[in-house]
Each structure stands twice: as C-alpha cells, then as structure tokens.
C-alpha cells in the first residue's frame, strides 16, 4: 500500500523538520544555562493543548529566571528545551533520546499518557527526573521507576469520582462508554466502567473511536438504540466537541460526561450550544479556590489568552522540579531526585506531595458543568 509507506515517510520528514527547527533555536541560546526538557504535541490536532502546556512551563521558567537563583554557589539560569512528540509514543521515544543526548537535567512531560509511558523508560535508564503534568494513565508510575512523578491525580483517583457523580448526582442507571483507544482514553474509560459496575450501574454499550476521528454518527446511532441515561467519553476535546454536537443531531438526550480531556475552552467554543450541560472532571481544586490561583490566571491570560487546560499543571511541575534542586543545592539529577520525592510544595493547582510511586498524594478531583458557555465548578468530590 503506497499510502502507508507515504504516511510513514511523511512522519519521518515531519519529525526531521521539527527536530532540526528546534535544534536551530537551541544553538542561539546555548549560553551555559541549565536545560530542562519539555515535550507535548506541538503539531497535530492536540497542538493547542500542547502549546498551552508549553506556555505554562515557560512562564515558570521566566519567573524562576527573574529570581536570580543561586544553586551550588553560582547564579543559575534555566532554559526550556521544547520538542514536539506529536502525541505519538514512537516519536516520544525519539524525543526522549534527544533530551538525553542534549544533557537536560530533567523533563517536564509528556502531555499524553501514550507518549509519556514509552518515553519514561529512556529517562529511567539515563537517570533523568521526569515530571508529567498531565499523563494520568495508572501505568506510568506503576513501572517501578524511581524517577517518574506526576502532579495530576491519576485515573484511579479520577474515575471513581466520575462514576460516583454519574450514579449519585446524575442518577444514571444505564451508561454508555466511548474511548479513543489511547493509553489515556482507554485507561480512564476502563476505570470508569469498573467503578460504574461497582456502584450498581449497568454499562449498556462500549464503543470505540480514534484520536483522529471526527465522525461518530455510526457509534452514536448504535448507542442511541441501547437507550442510555449517560454517555461517558474517554478522550480529548478535538473529538469531544463534534461528539456532543452529533449527539444533539441524533436527538440523544443522555447526559454527556468526560474526563480532563473534555475540560477545555476549545470544547465550549467548538461545540457551541451543544456543549451546554456537559460535565467534565479535572484533577485539583478550582483555580479560584487556590491561594495562588487567581494571580496565576491573571498573569497567564495577560500573556497567552485563556487557559486551555494543562498550563497550570505544567507551571507547578517546573516549580516542583526547581524547588527540589534548590533544596539539594544541585542541578544534577542524581543529587536532586531524592528531594523531588520529598516534595511538599504549595502549588497553583494543589499542595503537591508524592507517594512512594510518584503519584500525587490526596489528589482532589473537581467536576465542572457547562452553563451559559462557561465551565462552572460543581462541589468537589474527595
């Protein structure tokens, strides 16, 4: 099949281009600064989320550089080395290898669980500290890697909250589940399904799509025939927005429920009126309830516009990493790694402490509902 060969070629060329472009940018700034790697999809359908995450991490780096830090007795400047992983596990490992070759002291990323997990092996083998701000798949921190952390509640913490809300608050009895077959979508959907069954709900239909699809009419038609009270989607906003629109087209009355991948500004913008009433979860407390939240929001939005989703978490991830360096008085991964594990940091999204696996301790999960074109926080579930 020529198309497959060509798409592979296309990927290879695109990767070569993106790597060489970033490479050029780096050379200009090579001034002895301490390099921190950052990786997320910066091209493709999730690029808006990746850019948002990068902006968050970059804001943290700028804040830190403005503080004129001294680590190990000399002034330190940080530099964010940002590479595109295209939300693809194969590209992510190439990116990870490049970070290793470039001598980064730590990595913030990746954004998607499906990219984070394959890359984590390479960071582990090379002793580089990895803090993901948004990979929520349980497997990431369950591989026995001592250097892998995340600052967002994982899917084991998120899916019970979602299931509880579906059964207790929405009073759903018949539930249909769709996922996008990525590590994240599948993980959160499986967790949700297990918890729904535990709470006595019935899963009447389980359907699947991909993270590149935009047409869900066929699976939604099949779901409609099974007459659910609630439809849960494990996936990102690029799919979620047309999905809720097509639910309306088919006249499906069921409640829409999504994970953190649905909680974005773009979801509301692109789904329009169809977004109204949709519910999504997001780990952490609402920004307004956090001491540093409103200030961060104001400063971020003045610079980059509305927060899409992961900017705050990436800001926290950088801060956690550098705080550990400060305490260890070293930027060497082997020196500051034990300090990362001991983190107790009052971040923008949560008070960050890690358990022995590198997961967030006591991760809170908040639920939000679209009302009049805005995400409005529902009471937090612990």
């Amino acid at each position, binding site marked *: 099949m020529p198309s497959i060969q060509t798409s592979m070629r296309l990927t290879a060329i695109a990767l070569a281009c993106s790597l060489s472009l970033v490479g050029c940018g780096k050379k200009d700034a090579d001034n002895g600064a301490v390099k921190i790697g950052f990786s997320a999809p910066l091209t493709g359908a999730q690029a808006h989320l990746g850019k948002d995450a990068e902006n968050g991490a970059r804001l943290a780096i700028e804040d830190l550089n403005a503080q004129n830090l001294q680590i190990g007795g000399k002034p330190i400047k940080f530099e964010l080395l940002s590479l595109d992983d295209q939300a693809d596990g194969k590209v992510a490992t190439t990116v990870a290898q490049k970070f290793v070759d470039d001598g980064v002291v730590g990595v913030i990323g990746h954004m998607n669980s499906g990219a984070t997990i394959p890359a984590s092996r390479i960071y582990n083998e090379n002793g580089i500290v990895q803090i993901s701000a948004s990979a929520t798949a349980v497997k990431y921190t369950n591989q026995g890697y001592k250097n892998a952390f995340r600052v967002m509640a994982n899917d084991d913490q998120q899916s019970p909250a979602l299931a509880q809300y579906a059964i207790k608050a929405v009073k759903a009895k018949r539930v249909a589940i769709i996922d996008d077959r990525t590590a994240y979508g599948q993980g959160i959907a499986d967790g949700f399904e297990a918890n729904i069954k535990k709470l006595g709900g019935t899963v009447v239909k389980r359907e699947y799509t991909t993270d590149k699809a935009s047409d869900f009419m066929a699976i939604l038609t*099949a779901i409609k*025939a099974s007459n659910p009270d609630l439809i849960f989607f494990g996936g990102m906003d690029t799919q979620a927005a047309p999905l809720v629109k097509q639910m309306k087209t088919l006249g499906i009355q069921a409640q829409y429920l999504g994970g953190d991948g649905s909680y974005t500004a773009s979801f509301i913008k692109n789904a*329009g009126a169809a977004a109204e009433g949709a519910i999504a979860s997001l780990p952490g407390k609402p920004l307004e309830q956090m001491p540093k939240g409103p200030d961060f929001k104001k400063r971020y939005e003045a610079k980059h516009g509305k927060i899409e989703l992961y900017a705050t978490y990436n800001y926290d991830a950088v801060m956690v990493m550098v705080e550990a360096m400060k305490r260890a008085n070293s930027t060497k991964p082997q020196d500051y790694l034990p300090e990362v594990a001991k983190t107790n940091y009052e971040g923008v999204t949560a008070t960050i402490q890690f358990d022995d696996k590198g997961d967030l301790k006591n991760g809170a999960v908040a639920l939000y509902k679209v009302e009049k074109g805005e995400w409005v926080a529902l009471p937090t579930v612990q």
Partner: protein
Amino acid sequence: MSILDPSTFQVLLSTLPQQLSNGLILGSVYALVALGYTMVYGIMGLINFAHGEVMMFGAMICIAILGVFSGFDINLWIALPSAVLLTLPCCALLGWSIERVAYRPLRQAPKLAPLISAIGVSIVLQNLAMLFWGRGNIPFPALQNLTPIQIAGANITSVQIGIVITAAILMWVLYLLIERTQMGRAMRACAQNPDVAGLMGINLNKVIASTFILGSGLAAIAGIMVSANYGQANATMGFMFGLKAFCAAVLGGIGNIRGAMLGGLLLGLIESLGAGYLGQLSNGYFGSQYQDVFAFLMLILVLVFRPSGLLGEKQGARA
C-alpha cells in the same frame, strides 16, 4: 446476543436508516475529494498528496470569510453562499499554483520526485495554515443550532441534506463536463496518451492546470462541507481525510471518474455500517475499534480480486 435473536434483529433494523444516511453523508464528501485524486492521477499518473491540504484550506478560508461577514450582520443565507463562492477561486488558485510550482518543473523527472514534492507541499501548507489560523480547532461560526429533521426514521440536519444534494449536483456537472465538453474531451485524450494528445494540438499545460483547478474547487467545497457538518476545522484535518479519499479513489479504480464517486460512497457506507454493526454481528468479539480495520480489509479484498479497482480499466488497456 446473537444476530438470530429477534430483539437484536429489531435493533439492527431500526438503526439501519440512520446508519445508511450516516454512510451516505460521509461517502458524498469522500467522493468529492476522491475525484480530485483520480483526475490528477488519470492525466499525470501522479498522486497529489497535497490534495487533502487544499480541502483543509477550503474550510479555513471559508470560516475566515464568514468571520469577516459576521461583523456586518449579514443574513446567513446570503453570507454562506457568498463565502463559498469567494472560497472557490482562492482554492482554485492554490491548486493551480501547487501544480505550477511543485509539479510542472518535475514533469519529466522520475515518478518518485513529484511524489516527494507533493509530500513537501502538504507539509508546507499544513504549517502555513497553523501560522495563519493557529494550532487548535476553529469553530464553524454560522450553523451552530440546528434541529434535526426526521426522514424515514433517520435524524438528519439541513446541513447534511445540503451536503448530499450539493455533492450529487457537483458530481453530475463534473461528469457532463468531462463527457460532453471540448475541455473534457481534451482531458480524456491527455489521460490516454499525453504525448499524442500534444501532437494533436492539445495544450497539455492548460489541460493539467484546469484539472488542478477543478479538483481543488471540489476539494474546497468538500472541506467546507466537513467543517460545517462537524462544526470545527483544524490545520491537520486534511491529512486523514485525504488518505481516506485516496483509498476511496483506489477502491473505485484510480483514474476513473465514476470509480471515484462509487468508491467514495462505498467507503462511507462500509465505515458507517462496519462501526455500527460489527459488534452485534460478531457477537461482541469485534467492536467498533475494528471499524478502520474492517474498511481497509474490504479495500484489500477488492484489490486482490480486482487489482485495478471496481471500475478501473485493465492495466493492458492503458499501457
């Protein structure tokens, strides 16, 4: 739950009209894009991988124009057709320039050279679109609140009815253009043998340019249809759609106009019926995660038994 179970059978029957209409809508768009692939292939023997990007530009330009119109409070039924009419020449120009810049200088080069240049153009266009319109999805502004209409048990929006009717009219017009006009005859002649056609006084450059203009126009309309239907567009939407449409063209027999139409409609129906019924028909062993596998399996099966596609000519007839 087996297929023989009467209640399952009833569910199958009750969702059939909806699944058929889903497939028809998807298929009409595939067919429009597939026509662009097949026309270029028929004449130049080149797979224009930038074609999906032209489709994406159609969607993006139309949304941009609608955005400008919305500032003047123009009625939707005037704004939308005029935006489409303004988008067409932009995309036709884009298609023409792609041919002029990326393919014409390579016309005598080995076949692989224009293919690589096609991939290059595709990447450049995708990144240009990201520069102009950003990386995220942009919403299609006008048609946000549409209540569906019920036709024979299927829920269909007016946009979707518009898609099917417009696609049918466009394909009919294109068919007439190719079969009944002087330009169409010149195109068919070039497809049979460009050198001899040239000797007979046909301006090959002009024919190829008009092929790209026609194909790009169709792709632009397909792009507008897709973004209006799904309510959003992004810089990378053209890639997957282009790939699917290319498969549709191969399924129908690449180089054959009627084949592209048939291939597009079939692929849409196969995808939709596959995703909708695979789970029930296989007793839950294969769910909708196999929808693409199923569609490509059908494609492979067709190609095994008819290597030149459903309506493709035998290889000997063309050599």
